[in-house]
């Protein structure tokens, strides 16, 4: 039997690392958001000026609203697109090897550089892009669709493709765990396919949806690269605001945007964690 001291000895490198390089920077960010910002410098005199500035400025507050809107759209779309795929992999494929192979197929793009994945959408969506060419060849459209690239739509398409895998994985995992005899039993008792889905599969897969939603949320809210690459810097999310503010050494504004982002994210994750205990699902 190892002593309690041994446990803390094993934990100490991790705890120290997290304290110094995760907790301290985040506290510093909150602290700096109350500093006084002038054009060329920043002073540690406490003020709420940057906060007032943030919420009264159309640029910043607008970016917050846009960020929330895009995040919510991406979240809903990833659930709508990811759930059927997860259902197919988890319920309709009985062969374990094939199941794993399909999941691996979904994960493989994850092993390509993130920036390259974003960039790959450019020749796809452009005015002379692959989608427009194909649609024109089949004769569905006469003129190329121009709203595909450098709009909010392109940002959403790009984000859905990049992050949907994080929705499919957890849901497929939960659906795959459902006891087959439960469904057979329900069917023997005369339950319709819809009833089985609504009463058995949906509730049992809910933890997967929640975990997926948490993944997608934290990743989309922290995004800026997809937005700047696929919108031609027209769509500015809070992440982009942080980048520009840091670029012009406006540390206090950047910190305010960072804290706002953290609050939005933490609120959502806390609500989700009330519904499902992440640790028990492992």
């Amino acid at each position, binding site marked *: 039997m190892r002593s309690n001291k041994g446990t803390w000895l094993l934990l100490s490198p991790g705890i120290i690392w997290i304290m110094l390089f995760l907790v301290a920077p985040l506290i510093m960010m909150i602290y700096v958001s109350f500093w006084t910002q002038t054009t060329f410098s920043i002073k540690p005199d406490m003020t709420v000026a940057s906060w007032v500035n943030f919420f009264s400025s159309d640029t910043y507050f607008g970016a917050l609203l846009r960020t929330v809107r895009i995040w919510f759209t991406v979240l809903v779309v990833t659930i709508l697109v990811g759930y059927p795929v997860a259902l197919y992999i988890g319920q309709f494929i009985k062969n374990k090897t094939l199941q794993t192979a399909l999941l691996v197929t979904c994960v493989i793009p994850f092993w390509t550089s993130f920036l390259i994945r974003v*960039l790959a959408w450019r020749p796809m969506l452009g005015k002379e892009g692959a989608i427009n060419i194909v649609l024109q060849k089949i004769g569905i459209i006469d003129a190329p669709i121009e709203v595909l690239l450098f709009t909010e739509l392109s940002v959403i398409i790009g984000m859905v493709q990049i992050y949907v895998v994080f929705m499919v994985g957890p849901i497929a995992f939960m659906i795959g765990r459902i006891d087959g005899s439960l469904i057979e039993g329900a069917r023997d008792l005369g339950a319709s396919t819809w009833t089985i889905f609504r009463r058995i599969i949906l509730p049992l897969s809910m933890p997967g949806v929640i975990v997926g939603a948490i993944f997608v949320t934290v990743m989309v809210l922290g995004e800026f690269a997809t937005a700047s690459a696929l919108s031609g810097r027209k769509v500015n999310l809070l992440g982009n605001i942080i980048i520009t503010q840091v670029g012009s050494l406006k540390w206090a504004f950047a910190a305010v945007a960072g804290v706002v982002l953290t609050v939005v994210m933490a609120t959502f994750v806390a609500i989700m964690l009330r519904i499902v205990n992440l*640790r028990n699902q492992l």
Partner: protein
Amino acid sequence: MDKVVSLRWFLGIFTAAFVLFLYGPFIVMGILSFQQGPEGGPQFPIIEWSTYWYQHVFGLAPPSRIAPLPIGEALIRSLTLAFATMVVSTVMGVLTAQAFRRPFRGSGIVFYSVILGMIVPGVLLGLGMVLLANQVGIDRNWWSTAFVLHVVYTYPFAFLVMLAIFNRFDESVEEASLSLGVSPAKTFRKVTFPIIFPGVLSAMLFAFTLSYDEFPRTLFTGGSDVTMPIAIYGTFAVEIHPNLFAFGVISTLFSFSLLAVYGILLTLSIRRQNQRASGLQEDIT
């Protein structure tokens, strides 16, 4: 029953379309990487098939108005950083997961603070780290401020992988070894480690690939010597050329070879374990 069959077909077609959606951009990118150079742009139609842009990436193409990608030193830095991150985060992940095998007070809060490292968006952490470094008066470098954030990011992955491994770990083997008088250190080396090795390998793979590709955390904290993803990001601002696509294809192939090495190592370790187990059995009978 008909309903189920049609549902199966619908979902099957939906999944196929989904896979096409995931891979479409790569296929297009792969095709366009063979665009004619240096005049051919990053769009259709293909003027003439050529490997010009691949030569361009490796610096073999005759000089043109399109600047070569700033790889080379950036690549070395990225690989060094990924390797260091892999070693540190895997060791810490194993240690922390080992501690979690016994219940202890405060385990919930430790668990969630470790997990926080992979959840907090890179931009926020990068920003916080820069502010902290400014305050303390530390220079920003890829091997210092960026490195510690890479570990914060990859260590939770290593920890979770090891936790899952230890959850399925048969402790009686270890206890048997200890009760036979084998020292704890030797027990870890000879008994525990071979069993958890596949997990360690997965943790290493995660840490290496995540760090190699890491971008938002490095953007602020990396200093003036750029890593690979930052170098790529730098080319975003200006006009893009098919050399980025060629580079994308090459780096994808590199990732796959890494994945293949992982697969081979894993198979070898499982086979060796099976052999050892059967050898042991022969000894006993």
